[in-house]
């Protein structure tokens, strides 16, 4: 299946270019071709959330489920020169690779990443600026999510904004 079909950023309005091949780890699994119920990434390397020595409760979040490494992240990708000529495609390209870094950061140091997201949501809920800075929220799009993390993020939304609800 083409990665363009599954791309979440598709605008559905025009032809989309696929600059970097997007690999969806669970695609084979979802195509219902497997007969066993093994996880799609069981044979691959995985990342675990590790507690560092100087933080006391950093392993409080769920550490039971290993996060799969992002596929293709150790391959050498040559940037096509045509991507560099347009600022839009160049930005997308940089965003994609920055996203891979954030993915691996969030897989092993979730609390730090989550604090960043939560403090931004808090700030946005209380600010009265016209154009507040929302770049930190993009971290959410690239984080390695499992169920407990997703629930944490969702709870961060409504606990953070409970007192400032105005519409």
């Amino acid at each position: 299946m083409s990665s363009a079909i599954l791309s979440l950023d598709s605008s559905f309005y025009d032809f989309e270019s696929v600059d970097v091949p997007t690999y969806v780890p669970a695609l084979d699994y979802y195509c219902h071709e497997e007969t066993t119920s093994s996880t799609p990434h069981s044979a691959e390397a995985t990342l675990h959330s590790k507690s560092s020595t100087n933080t006391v409760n950093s392993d409080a979040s769920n550490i039971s489920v290993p996060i799969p490494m992002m596929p293709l992240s150790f391959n050498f990708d040559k940037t096509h020169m045509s991507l560099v000529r347009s600022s839009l495609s160049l930005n997308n390209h940089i965003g994609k690779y920055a996203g891979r870094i954030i993915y691996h950061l969030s897989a092993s140091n979730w609390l730090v990443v989550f604090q960043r997201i939560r403090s931004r949501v808090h700030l946005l809920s209380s600010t009265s600026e016209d154009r507040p800075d929302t770049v930190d929220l993009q971290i959410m799009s690239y984080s390695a999510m499992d169920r407990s993390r997703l629930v944490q993020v969702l709870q961060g939304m409504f606990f953070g904004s409970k007192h400032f609800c105005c519409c």
Partner: protein
Amino acid sequence: MKRDTQAAVSRPLRRAIWNWIDLFPDEFNEALRSRGRMEGAPERTFDLLYTQQPGAEKALWPTLTILNCISSERLGSDFQINHFGSGHFGGHKGSHRKVCRPTLYCLTLTELLSDIQEHQFIENLIKNANTASKFSEIAMVCVLDMCRVAFHIRPGGDVPLRLIGSDIAHEIKVCLFCVSPEYCGLS
């Protein structure tokens, strides 16, 4: 939450939810099949982001759709699409819920209201996708998203979203093949 904030939060949130579905298919399937796995978080976030006021449909609707899809507790099996192209939920809401949740849940008024809210939202989506409105394109993106989620559910078992997905797929085909005469210059 202010409208701008809602819009800013909702786009990355949608991608975060899709990341989870892609990364952990087992967890996703389990969450849809068993009650309470998500601790009510998608439902409450839906209520936070849902608003009747116009203005940010393009940013909010896709996120509301995906939140709705992972709220297994609210998306009931009583959803049907009628032949006039708009979706509706059959049966009386209160009585149906009582049958579904005997003594487990004591339904509060707010819970009942938000159930209706969510159903209204999907009905509105399908209506907009089917008719020529200014939101028909974004509504189409949303119903395609619902189909995409339905495709991610393993066969077997009774998951309402699979049935809804196949109904919606039919609606999308109708939309695709029944191009209105104006597009062909025949009006």
